[in-house]
């Protein structure tokens, strides 16, 4: 399954990636799976996607939970808790 992933704010800076296209195996079916998959890259990825790190995730520009199923071709976004307003 192909996915587009965006990173914002502190996460974008820490990973030094703004946007990427990824291809994940069928076993990666939920948001939680994707997070684990990214964490498995090791190094800064393991650090930033560690379970205790507070991250928000959006799919198709809507905030989703860890148990949400991934949709092929979707735009995902990972970001820290928001601080606007």
């Amino acid at each position, binding site marked *: 399954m192909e996915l587009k992933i965006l990173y914002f*704010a502190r996460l974008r800076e820490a990973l030094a990636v703004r946007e990427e296209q990824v291809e994940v195996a069928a076993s990666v079916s939920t948001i939680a799976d994707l997070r684990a998959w990214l964490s498995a890259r090791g190094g800064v990825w393991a650090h930033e996607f560690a379970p205790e790190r*507070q991250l928000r995730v959006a*799919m198709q520009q809507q905030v989703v939970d860890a148990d949400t199923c991934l949709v*092929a071709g979707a735009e995902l*976004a990972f970001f820290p808790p928001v601080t606007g*307003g």
Partner: protein
Amino acid sequence: MIVVKVQTDDFDLSAEIAQLRHSNGAVGAVVSFVGVVRDLNDGAAVSAMSLEHYPGMTEQSITTIVEQAQARWSIFDALVIHRVGDLLPLDQIVLVAVTSAHRGEAFQACEFIMDYLKTQAPFWKKEQTPTGARWVDARVTDDSAASRWTQACVENNSTIDD
């Protein structure tokens, strides 16, 4: 009418509110909130700030929350302007203005929209302080974020055709 703008430029409160007032003779109340860059945050002097957002999601998510406010309270129009880019202390960051016939509805809807903006809308602030730049920490009280990552898969309603 709902107007949502994300922009680098400053805004003129008088002009924006005058437009809301003049659009509808039934408007009796205009409640507005202006967020301002403070020169001190979490104990450190702030010399400058930059704001990042998630283009597309920002506008869409704010519009959705304003629609929820309109469904919940008897309000007429709502205007949200959120600045992004580089800002200085005392600068205006955000305007939320709501019109209604009577004041109670506008007060509640305005605060409701602001609460959403603060906790859900995808904006992030980075501050310049004497010890360097830092991303502003969200005021999260005992967020159970970690535990949310350990549940079973549930079919999501949204599709990529949304």
